């Protein structure tokens, strides 16, 4: 109940930034349309029915869904923690009777809920009106939603672990950037990871990153083994959950010893 009210209050604060709120969505839609045009050309000139099992229609929805999931998972806890530590009032957060990691999570969740209802769902509906229904079944759609929720938890944990770096380095900007860039090469935003050479692909399968956006998208499109994907996600969550708590406690010890 308390968590719900906190989320509600934080969600209100999100809506104060209207331009920022819709700005990156427009960019994202343009990006989807650009990729659609490029792939249209590829299919037109190669005369292929499908590439690695993806028809043109599949690819359109691949890009739509993966972009929308990426938006949904755009966790920026690390950025906010860094801002709090550098300019704001991180210390006063430590003096509130709420755990800082939990507050970060609720804060981010509030943003994601606002995003889903005001950005992601409406955009998805508009795309369906333009391009028709996605190649999903009801089951794949439901499993897709579960897999996105798991992906979100995984992303929160990864981002939170990154954010603890700020307590050990003076500035963690560079590390965030390297991480973001690296992530975009292997999260399937540019093209389905299946298009990678087989050896690379088989290595990626054992990393947590494809389970953030790529596999949830495939689950939606009914192109992956649901239980396999969910299983890997759960394993990574179970691994990262204690690790992120351990890192947070390490950071706390450091803060208490040397200040922020």
């Amino acid at each position, binding site marked *: 109940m*308390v968590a719900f*009210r*906190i989320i509600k*209050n*934080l969600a*209100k*604060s999100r809506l*104060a*930034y209207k331009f920022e709120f819709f700005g990156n969505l427009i960019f994202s839609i343009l990006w989807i349309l650009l990729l659609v045009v490029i792939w249209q050309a590829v299919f037109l000139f190669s005369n292929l029915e499908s590439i690695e099992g993806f028809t043109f229609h599949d690819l359109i929805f691949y890009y739509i869904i993966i972009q929308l999931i990426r938006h949904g998972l755009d966790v920026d806890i690390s950025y906010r923690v860094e801002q709090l530590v550098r300019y*704001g*009032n991180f*210390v*006063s957060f*430590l*003096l*509130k*009777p*709420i*755990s800082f990691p939990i*507050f970060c999570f609720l804060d981010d969740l509030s943003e994601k809920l606002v995003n889903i209802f005001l950005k992601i769902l409406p955009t998805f509906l508009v795309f369906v009106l333009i391009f028709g229904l996605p190649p999903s079944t009801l089951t794949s759609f439901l499993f897709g939603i579960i897999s996105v929720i798991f992906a979100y938890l995984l992303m929160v944990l990864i981002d939170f672990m990154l954010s603890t770096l700020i307590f050990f380095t003076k500035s963690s900007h560079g590390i965030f950037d390297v991480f973001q860039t690296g992530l975009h090469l292997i999260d399937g935003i540019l093209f389905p990871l299946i298009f990678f050479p087989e050896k690379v692909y088989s290595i990626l399968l054992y990393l947590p990153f494809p389970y953030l956006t790529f596999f949830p998208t495939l689950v939606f499109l009914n192109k992956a083994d649901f239980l396999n994907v969910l299983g890997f996600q759960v394993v990574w969550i179970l691994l990262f959950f204690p690790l992120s708590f351990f890192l947070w406690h390490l950071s706390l010890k450091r*803060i*208490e*010893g*040397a*200040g922020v």
Partner: protein
Amino acid sequence: MDREEVISVKEISKSFRTYKKEAGLLNTLKSIFRRNWIRKRVLHNISFEVYKGEIFGILGPNGAGKSTLIKILSGILYPDEGFAKVLGYIPWKDRKKLSKHVGIIFGQKSQLFWDLPAIDSFELLKDIYGIPEKEYERNLRVMVELLDAKEIIRKPVRTLSLGERMKCELTASLLHNPKLVFLDEPTIGLDILAKESIRKFIRKIAKRRKTTFILTTHDMKDVEELCERCIILDKGLQIFLGKVEDLKKYFWGRKVLTIKYEDKINIPKIKGLKVLKAEKYKIRLEVDTKQVKIKSVLQKIFSPNVIDIEIQSLDLEEVLKRIYRKRW
């Protein structure tokens, strides 16, 4: 004295590990590989008590260790040595429990959402602290009335003046009825009127609710008007602990004479008269009126060459300046 102890601090010391780097590109490169670690003492052997309903001052120049002391008392930092109890808790062990009864304001930082009206931040704090609806409404009404802030709390924080924002910060940190409030330079950057109204508010809250305030400040007027007792820190050392009155009493009866003259004047050697600063055509003298009367000093100095005479008493600011410079 039979007063309830809110804070007791015994022989607390704290030092930080930091590294020294010489200027220059080469040294910067060197410091990447080998760092010259040094230990810097921030607090050394600090002991004091604070009682319920008291407004207690922590004074000291920049880098004296005031903020570190507040961070230790609120549980954010743990000391290297020594012991402290705050509201019955050991702060660095029971920070979460303590935080329910403590409010804190850092004058240079904000705990409010920058782009929203303060009232939205208050609502969030209500949930975080689990303040019952009725108590929240009553508290908010009282604060808003005392601070005359009815309009202010409904405007986005970024549009507020510094003084208005401070009113909102004060409200935010008092909504949950804390027993103890840390104020880290609450009047910094405020104009005289705003300072006045903030001080009035703090006095009232301390009196009405028996809230204890710990105040760090550079503004001596804050201390003179608010605090009964204070501690003075300098480079981590406790150089004074006691009543603000006593601090002033030491210098009681000392006056500063500033005399402007042309050509030349004769400064007699009298007991209780000391030259502070001599310039060309201007001299500052300190007179201890317990030893010599101002009247007789003036009589001896006065000559047709004197243009102007100004007599001032030592204020707390001057007192502190001397303490810091070790010129008692």
